[in-house]
């Protein structure tokens, strides 16, 4: 099929009305091609989880989502809750930072995996379902998968539980897999294993992946593209290496500068002064102006639009042309 797998336009997520109204996503435009891996980065509170939860149709009561989220031609925001529930576990799958939010501690992992397969592939004979489950656990690197089927989630390490979650996503054969900080709680060497696993599986699995992380190094290793979120805005996007090695937007520059620099020991570490904007703030200009090292007078009154920078990059900053 031509065109992107996922196309998000002017996505807004808000709560309440009047003076106390909260704007969580403030108009996101984003497209993701089939088979690509997109990283999403940004400080806590930038709206990363809100964005992917909205894609999954998991908007909490009281919040309003407006705009368009088109998955392979179908606008997800227009779907009924029933239809949306049917998409989850078929065309959309998600893994979380804490696998225990999705795994039930009192059922064996084999039972839970078998349920997912039965639901996804109804009518499959039990022996085949069982075989698929064992095969999936083997593919995600669980040693002795046949025996592991009988384990309870509590008997597995954090890394192994995350592998089980990936196995559940795999058997769904989703078009879009969303991973919200799946490696944040893991040790660096286990995180590297999970990233390596996702890289190897991307070919098996053919769909696209959205991967949220606050670890820019991990994003660089796994993703093709990256989107930088700040205060509910997408402020920069593009190929991962280009963006993280030569960031354009002042926010991306600042964020990257906190994680990489070649300065000597004794030189102070970089940081971003101030804090992320509250959802109730309604700045007239650039959302980052208060903390931006390059902000000038127009930045406080004119909101920059996300504009193309060359073939494959985009950034939302009024002063891009004037920055060093």
């Amino acid at each position, binding site marked *: 099929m031509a065109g992107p797998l996922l196309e998000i336009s002017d996505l807004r997520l808000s709560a309440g009305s009047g003076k106390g109204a909260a704007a969580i996503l403030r108009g996101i435009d984003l497209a993701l091609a089939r088979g690509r891996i997109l990283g999403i980065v940004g400080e806590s509170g930038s709206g990363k989880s809100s964005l992917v939860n909205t894609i999954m149709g998991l908007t909490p009561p009281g919040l309003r989502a407006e705009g368009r989220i088109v998955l392979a031609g179908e606008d997800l925001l227009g779907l009924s809750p029933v239809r949306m529930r049917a998409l989850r576990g078929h065309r959309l799958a998600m893994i979380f930072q804490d696998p225990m939010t999705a795994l039930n501690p009192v059922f064996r992992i084999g039972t839970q995996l078998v349920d997912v397969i039965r639901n996804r592939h109804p009518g499959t004979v039990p022996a085949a379902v069982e075989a698929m489950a064992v095969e999936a656990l083997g593919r995600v690197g669980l040693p002795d998968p046949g025996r592991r089927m009988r384990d309870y989630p509590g008997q597995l390490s954090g890394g192994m539980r995350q592998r089980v979650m990936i196995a559940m996503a795999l058997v769904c054969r989703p078009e879009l897999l969303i991973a919200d900080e799946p490696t944040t709680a893991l040790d660096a060497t286990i995180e590297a294993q999970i990233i390596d696993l996702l890289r190897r599986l991307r070919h098996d699995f053919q769909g696209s992946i959205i991967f949220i992380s606050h670890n820019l190094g991990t994003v660089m290793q796994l993703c093709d593209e990256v989107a930088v979120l700040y205060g509910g805005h997408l402020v920069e996007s593009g190929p991962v290496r280009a963006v993280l090695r030569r960031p354009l937007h002042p926010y991306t520059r600042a964020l990257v500068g906190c994680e990489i620099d070649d300065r000597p020991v004794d030189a*102070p570490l970089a940081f971003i002064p101030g804090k992320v904007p509250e959802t109730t703030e309604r700045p007239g200009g650039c959302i980052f102006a208060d903390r931006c090292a390059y902000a000038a007078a127009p930045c406080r009154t004119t909101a920059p639009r996300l504009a193309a920078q060359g073939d494959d990059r985009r950034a939302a900053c009024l002063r891009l042309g004037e920055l060093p």
Partner: protein
Amino acid sequence: MTASPGIRLGALSVTFGRAIRALDRVTLEVGEGETVGIVGESGSGKSTLCRTLVGLTRPTAGEVEVLGEPVTVALRRDPRGYRRRIQMLMQDAVATLSPRMTIGRLLAEAVAIHGLDRDETEERIRSFLGRLRLPPSILGRYPHEISGGQARRIGVIRALLLRPRVLVADEPTAGLDVSVQGELLNLLMEFQRELDLTFMIVSHNLHVIKRVTRRTLVMYLGQIVEDAPTRDLFARPAHPYATALISTNPLLAAEDGGGAIILRGEIPSNAALPPGCRFHTRCPVARPVCAETMPELEPTAAGGQVRCHFPGTLARPGTGAA
């Protein structure tokens, strides 16, 4: 390293229950005024090491000396004096603040038991608040009313009010966004220099360790496996675990210097330690001897120490260097 040791550990072992060997014969000397980083997998004993230093955990065997005096002796002789000389920033800053006391009371109590002058203390608190960019009104708030970042700053004030000579920071920025970690770490490093603190900092953020320490300890399953000048460690790690750990962060290399080394398997349990080298079950360059004989911590040419039969032999994928 200076001549007088700020911290000296002699074959320090800590065993929990009968089987969990959290620290196993750790020997170490840290000079007064030195800043040392500690990295390692969770469960490798980093927190236990910190807690043993401040006297919160008792050694099962071996010696712990701080500023030239065994901790057990110091704690018996003058427990308050000892707690003033060495302070610890805990991994979970918020949980260490008593929920029913205002921040102001909490700080006052921390100094009151040490009989410090009240006016001088208030003056010091005010000056700390200013430098840590905390509003004076925070003194009237309760711990649940302040942010995680503010709680960490209050923890720093509480630790430094007593003018310690040794500061142990166990993941002082865990849970904070990298965007704000730098500010807190800069302040800690300023205080380290001003007070000439002997400073041990545990972090899983390798960039932080690289930027604020001159010496780094790498721990694995209760042992120090590498102890090296930080610059050398990042440029040429000798231990295969250290090499793999550093390879997981591509941002640490100026260029795209090869991919991550993927270790097989998981960290074995402290209750069932592998024989021989503790790392051999996951080591990409292990040979038969590694499963049989535990390597000792041996000096390296670069002036560090490494615990490996084949140091420096693990190459990063995509690089020719060994």
